[in-house]
């Protein structure tokens, strides 16, 4: 049974939104909604839906004339790095959730590879408390599978679940030992919670910094072969099936991993998977620039891999989009490629990048994209945001025709290491409602106080 976002996630209290969005094209595949609508938000909830022009101006609140714009259920990102505690020079709960709101997200799930690692209930409780004061959108937290991400000892998984962990991951690192992962999968029977896995065999990825292929051969950079990921997907799917456990594969990047995932699904393993906007739209050819913005783990792969991941997202073999938003400070990325840390930001550009590179090119339907941008909630047993009367207002309004140059206006994130920096993209998020509050509105969005009566 899915849990309401507001119950399992954490967000600062604020003023509930009061507004009427008039004439926007509402698209929500889960509600079979695909038409121009008037949407009335009262006290942070969807109070009324009506055909375009049928809802009267509200007595209070704001009227937004939105003809030509689109309204979607707000997105849910199952994989972000908010860097708090310990690396606030890169990002924190406030700046990270501001970036999420600017990207149309109403909820994000934060990874535990912070300093200290989220491997004890006390660290988790402090984070939840901080989120209740400072998060603009709802934040959920995963705890680590092993203490200090060391791969040696299990965390107190049951206690962490009681303290509010949505699940577990050693993200950034694989659980190298099959024996250790097996114990965590067994423990899942006691405490529940999805195990999210970063799949990488370090014996194969070794000192690699990019995809192994023609580009790495040309540049003399050590390569990370695709099978460093796919062999671990196959291994862990087998372990999960044997233990009757449930696992989620993070940021799948290549064709062999998709094949391993398909095989796992066919054999009935309880698996889910995510893909990231950069793996869905970019390839290792960009690494020829030697720009550290294109260094991430898993790395940008070949075009055949990109297409396989897109196909899997379209068919539903891959469940959802996850940004793996990974901010790094400017000075950390302004070094030779091999020295730069792995990661790209992604919250503010996910929709526009995927809309421009996949929907406008005909590779993906808009409705499918919207579904996959929200489906991350279901992976963690959370209620997926919907446009339906009575639901909490988790909405984003997008101008699909608006073009913008990524980064030209700066970023809401504290970091600028965005792999789409400088690109011209279509699809500008104008307004985001998260948990019934206005979490983001673009400066250029005109609104009007509603007149007292019509």
């Amino acid at each position: 049974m899915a849990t309401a976002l507001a119950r399992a996630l954490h967000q600062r209290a604020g003023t509930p939104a009061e507004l009427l969005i008039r004439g926007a094209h509402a698209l929500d595949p889960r509600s079979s909604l695909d038409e121009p609508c008037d949407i009335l938000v009262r006290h942070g909830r969807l109070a009324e839906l009506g055909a375009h022009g049928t809802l009267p101006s509200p007595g209070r609140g704001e009227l937004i004339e939105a003809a030509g714009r689109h309204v979607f259920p707000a997105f849910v990102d199952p994989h972000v790095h908010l860097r708090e505690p310990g690396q606030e020079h890169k990002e924190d709960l406030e700046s990270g959730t501001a970036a999420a709101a600017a990207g149309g997200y109403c909820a994000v799930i934060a990874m535990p590879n912070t300093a200290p690692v989220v491997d004890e209930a006390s660290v988790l409780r402090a984070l939840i408390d901080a989120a209740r004061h400072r998060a603009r959108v709802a934040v959920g937290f995963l705890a680590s599978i092993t203490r200090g991400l060391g791969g040696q000892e299990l965390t107190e998984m049951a206690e962490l679940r009681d303290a509010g962990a949505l699940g577990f991951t050693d993200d950034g690192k694989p659980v190298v030992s099959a024996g250790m992962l097996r114990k965590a999968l067994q423990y899942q029977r006691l405490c529940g919670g999805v195990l999210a896995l970063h799949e990488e065999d370090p014996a194969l990825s070794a000192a690699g910094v990019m995809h192994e292929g023609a580009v790495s051969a040309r540049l003399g950079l050590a390569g990370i072969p695709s099978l460093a990921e796919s062999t671990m997907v196959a291994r862990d799917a087998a372990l999960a099936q044997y233990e009757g456990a449930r696992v989620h594969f993070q940021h799948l990047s290549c064709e062999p991993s998709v094949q391993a995932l398909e095989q796992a699904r066919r054999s009935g393993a309880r698996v889910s998977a995510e893909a990231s906007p950069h793996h869905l739209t970019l390839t290792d050819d960009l690494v020829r620039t030697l720009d550290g913005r294109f260094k991430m783990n898993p790395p940008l792969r070949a075009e055949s891999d990109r297409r396989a991941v897109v196909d899997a997202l379209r068919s539903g073999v891959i469940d959802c989009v996850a940004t793996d938003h990974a901010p790094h400070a400017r000075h950390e990325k302004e070094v030779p490629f091999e020295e730069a840390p792995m990661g790209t930001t992604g919250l503010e550009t996910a929709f526009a990048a995927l809309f421009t590179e996949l929907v406008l090119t005909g590779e993906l339907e808009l409705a499918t994209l919207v579904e996959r941008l929200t489906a991350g909630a279901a992976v963690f047993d959370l209620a997926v945001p919907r446009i339906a009367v009575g639901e909490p207002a988790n909405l984003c309004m997008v101008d699909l025709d608006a073009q913008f140059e990524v980064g030209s206006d700066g970023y809401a994130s504290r970091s600028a290491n965005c792999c789409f920096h400088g690109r011209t993209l279509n699809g500008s998020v104008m307004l985001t409602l998260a948990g019934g509050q206005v979490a983001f509105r673009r400066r250029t969005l005109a609104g009007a106080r509603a007149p007292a009566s019509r």
Partner: protein
Amino acid sequence: MSTRAPKHLISIEDLDRAGIERILDRAESFAEVAGREIKKVPALRGRTVVNLFYEASTRTSSSFELAAKRLSADVVIIRSVGSSVDKGESLKDTVQTLSAYDPAAIVIRSPHVGAAQLVARWTAAAVINAGDGKHEHPTQALLDVFTLRRRLGSLDGARIWIVGDVLHSRVARSNILAFGRMGARVTVCGPPTLLPREIESLGCRATAKLDGLDQADVVYVLRMQHERMLDSYIPSLREYAARYQVSATRLRPAQLLMHPGPVNRGVELSGDAIDSPQALLGEQVKAGVAVRMAVLYELLVGVPALAAVA
């Protein structure tokens, strides 16, 4: 058709065939300067060249220093040991500090791929890549082409084998590209663990066996480092030498032998091969100064007026 002089020399890809030939032609005239009693020309008088070396180097750093001095430039040499680099100064800060002296050129050697390209982003000086990790070493490739052109007249149609640790070699990458641009047919040969996947995409053939080496006009041997054995790329230097060492018995009399140095005598090359008259190792070193003079001239003075040499 000859192109404009590039602003930097970071990769062989910065030069087309005409550009390479222009540099080599100019190197010929500078080689003539080396035969004079006073080996100096005033081309760069009053200008500063910074040599920034983050990696040990004997021949590259000394030949760049001599090249700049023979062009009458002021030369500043920074090595990572004993400089503020040692104190943790970032590459960016070091480059910006040195750029405050308004150098005409920065020559950089770094253990990291792309270092020269980054430096070019942070300075107004012309940047010359003197080796960046396993990526490229374009002036080595130019001096190798220079040496071969003197012997063969032209590289068109020449069959060149590059033998050894291709995976870890910046010389291999620059030379595959440079030899290819000059019309040669390149084969790379080495243990399968030391041939990068898809290396053929650089425009060469790849093989793990020396069979067919007798078809080569030129055998270019790469340095085999001891560490490769510790990393299990090869089981032993002994076995490597048995399979891949280029010795006098494996060479045909007419074949030319090259090596970028420093040589591991008895590993990738036998002593008799090094000392044979087919070996061009000494000519390669000698070419280093003239070719690097020509590169500095190309970037700092420009295309016109070979007359400045006279």
